[in-house]
């Protein structure tokens, strides 16, 4: 599950993409961890995250089993409130909060450090600002896993804006074809970037798709700034 490790894009395209997640380790500190996960998300909400999520459940955008045909005229951009996500946590899967500024992340990390839940907290994002923010919060980072990017039959990958959007679900649940379709729809004025980001986000089963970055990428690609 390295689903947050390999996002595609040049460094500047990650300036608004920091995923802070917390998880337990089976057999070591998983007993009684669920209240801590909920507390983690409630704390995160005080620092204006872009979205929060639980793995295998999703974020504030979710698919629906039985839609009413009216939905084609009246689809909301958000299906659940953050509080509904927190209430829905019944298993001890990883939970995450996504931030679009290092400042928000840093202020959150300060509270995380103080809360001292004893579970593993990781940040997926640009390593240098994460290192700096952790230091400011009084945290010495423990380990790092670096993403070395893609190799092999690279001609099977789509072009940059499509890849940047589709790799925001590291599990590849966001199809490049769908990402490209949404890019086209935005360019054709058929949907707004916010709506398009919501459609894409509904396919990310862990809810770590960053809608703020998606909206920015969609707006940039809309005008042909590739």
């Amino acid at each position, binding site marked *: 599950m390295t689903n947050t490790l390999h996002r*595609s894009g040049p460094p500047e395209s990650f300036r608004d993409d920091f995923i802070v997640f917390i998880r337990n380790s089976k057999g070591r500190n998983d007993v009684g961890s669920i209240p801590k996960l909920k507390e983690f998300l409630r704390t995160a909400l005080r620092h204006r995250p872009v979205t929060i999520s639980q793995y295998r459940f999703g974020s504030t955008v979710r698919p629906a089993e039985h839609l009413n045909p009216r939905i084609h005229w009246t689809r909301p951009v958000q299906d659940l409130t953050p509080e509904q996500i927190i209430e829905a946590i019944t298993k001890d899967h990883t939970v995450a909060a996504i931030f679009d500024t290092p400042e928000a992340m840093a202020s959150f990390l300060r509270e995380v450090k103080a809360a001292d839940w004893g579970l593993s907290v990781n940040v997926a994002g640009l390593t240098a600002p994460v290192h700096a923010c952790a230091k400011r919060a009084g945290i010495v980072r423990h380990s790092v896993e670096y993403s070395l990017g893609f190799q092999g039959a*690279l*001609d*099977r*990958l*789509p*072009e*940059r804006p*499509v*890849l940047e959007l589709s790799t925001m679900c590291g599990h590849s649940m966001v199809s*490049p*074809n769908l990402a*490209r*379709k949404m890019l*086209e729809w935005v360019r054709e004025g058929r949907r707004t970037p916010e709506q398009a980001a919501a459609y894409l986000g509904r396919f990310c089963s862990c809810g770590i798709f960053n809608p703020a970055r998606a909206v920015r990428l969609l707006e940039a690609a809309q005008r042909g700034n*590739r």
Partner: protein
Amino acid sequence: MTNTLHRFGSRDSLRDDYIIFAMAARGINDQGAPPKLQTFLRLALKHHPINVGNAVKGGIFRASKALTPLAHWRRREFIAPEEVVESIDTCTTVSAVFDDPANLEAFLTELRGADLGISINIAALTDEARTCCQRAGITRHSVEYSLGFHGDLNRLPDRHVLELSTMCGHGMVAHNLAKKMLDWVKEGRRDPRQAATYLAKFCTCGIYNTTRAIRVLEEARVGK
């Protein structure tokens, strides 16, 4: 105008793609060239090319200047090849596209006999082109090898899109259009022949290989 040099694809995906073109050298043998270019195309037409083109006027697939709304239900696919031949009035480059090396070889044999005295080139797999030449009794003069794409490669789309869009080396067939046609074929909104025709209309030189395009569209349809 290296518009035929860099076609994207593996060796296997280029097995049905042979472009042969004729051109005269400025100031050396261009006087009186248009009739020779017409002869070149007329000879080519005897050997079942899938497209013939004039670099300044286009190939058999062309845009229409004034459609009637009925075109959305009924559309003419291409113009008569003879119209392309007739349209040659300047010293331009003319081309014929073959999808079968046997047809190319037969054409080469006839071309050698016709002795037009203008430059003839084949853009294709170099070893296949060489074999065709040898069988037709021709020793190749020079070769230009395509060493492929370098640089900021993550700006390029995926394999199927590139195979379709680079068949107009001038870049007139947009990646986005190629992708749209791939989707339309997948969705059953158009069949591969119709989709290949739309793409070919954007190639201003008439070197678009619709046979190969149809094959790529069919492969991509089922996710290969």
